[in-house]
């Protein structure tokens, strides 16, 4: 199975994104994926320079894509899914980082057991206008499935609808008959049970999360 990971690198690192990229790369070095993969860097709103390729050069099979930044991270994800052929693509927003060794093995394992649907490291059961959803800072699915999602995200405000709105990716997947899954280091849970994940996003110290982002705790501390 051919697997690719996608990471969003906005604005050539301006505005704090360089430090977030360093955090992602640092965590990648600390927590190896456990299997080979392609690495897609979406240079969002900036060209893919030699410097960018240098920064991300430790990632295997590096592919740098240039995007105009429309739709921010989600627009970048959709570009990657359209552009790079593979069986499974993992999507990381700029604030994402890894928290467990062999995280990709866990992701692929879940994908192979449950089939072509939407997976995430964190879920939200929703309330009010926020529909139950897989959080889109760290999720994975086949690019073929994402490419069938009918809305092209081109404006920043569409991102929230994409993540947790009535026409969002999770709701759309469910309407396609797909069961979204939340996957941690210790097991897989259907989205409806995401609050029960031991050490998950809403439960305990979040020690079993595969990925983190700006809303996870404890804060990530680079070691040097």
């Amino acid at each position, binding site marked *: 199975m051919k697997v690719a990971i996608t990471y969003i690198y906005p604005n050539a690192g301006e*505005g704090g994104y*360089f430090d977030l990229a360093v955090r992602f790369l640092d965590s990648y070095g600390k927590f190896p994926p456990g299997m080979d993969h392609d690495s897609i860097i979406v240079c969002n709103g900036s060209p893919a320079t030699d410097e960018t*390729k*240098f*920064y991300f*050069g*430790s990632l295997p099979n590096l592919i740098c894509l240039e995007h105009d930044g429309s739709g921010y991270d989600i627009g970048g994800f959709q570009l990657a899914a359209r552009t790079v052929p593979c069986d499974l693509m993992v999507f990381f927003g700029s604030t994402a980082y890894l928290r467990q060794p062999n995280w990709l093995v866990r992701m692929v394992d879940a994908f192979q057991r449950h089939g072509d649907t939407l997976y995430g490291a964190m879920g939200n059961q929703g309330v009010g206008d926020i529909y139950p959803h897989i959080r889109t800072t760290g999720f994975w699915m086949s690019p073929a499935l994402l490419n069938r999602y009918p809305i092209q995200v081109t404006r920043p405000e569409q991102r929230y609808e994409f993540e947790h709105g009535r026409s969002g990716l999770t709701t759309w997947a469910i309407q396609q008959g797909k069961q979204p899954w939340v996957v941690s280091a210790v097991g897989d849970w259907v989205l409806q049970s995401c609050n029960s994940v031991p050490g998950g996003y809403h439960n305990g110290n979040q020690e079993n999360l595969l990925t983190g982002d700006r809303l996870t705790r404890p804060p990530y501390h680079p070691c*040097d």
Partner: protein
Amino acid sequence: MRICIVYVCPQINPDVYGPAARRFADTYIANPPGLNDHEVVVCLNGGNGHGPYQRKLFEPLPVTFVEHNNWGKDIGAFQAAAQSLTCDLLVCFGSHIYFHRAGWLDRMVQVFESNGPSLYGAWGFHQPKPHLRTTGFWLPPELLRGYPKTIGDRDRYGFEHGPESITLWSQRLGFEPMQVTWDGAYPMPDWRVVNRAESLFYDQWFDGTRGG
């Protein structure tokens, strides 16, 4: 000219920084710095005294030890060194620096003497702001002492590549930050991504998995 090399050896996480220190010492010995007289000062960051373990990490390299409370981590240690060490040229090495070719100090001094007081480094980048990487750089200690902020744990990245970085601050003072390779010395407009052979020394980023 009196030259001090300060190497930061964090006392936390010895599984990481112990081997890094050993690599620094081993590659230093295997790739001698050159003819310029100098001293190597190891800053034990976050430690409370040095004993046989620390000495053994660097043997047989002749080093002296100083201590810092780890505030500001590597950058805090560099600033503390600039305050306490008396020298004309201060070489600042983070914990992941190591060497691959002899004569690296002679090359640093050669460019320093040719171009005069300024900030020098092995790697110059334009993203996210123009900066010389601060895992390995050299300058007159007065320049580092004059930096207007004592760096804390949360300011280190700003010191390296933020809008108030040591690079841009030095430039505003009229010093031209220079990227130095084995074959050239480049002002900011000419900075470029170097290959392994051109790099004066390596660190955890430029370790053969990046940069070709």
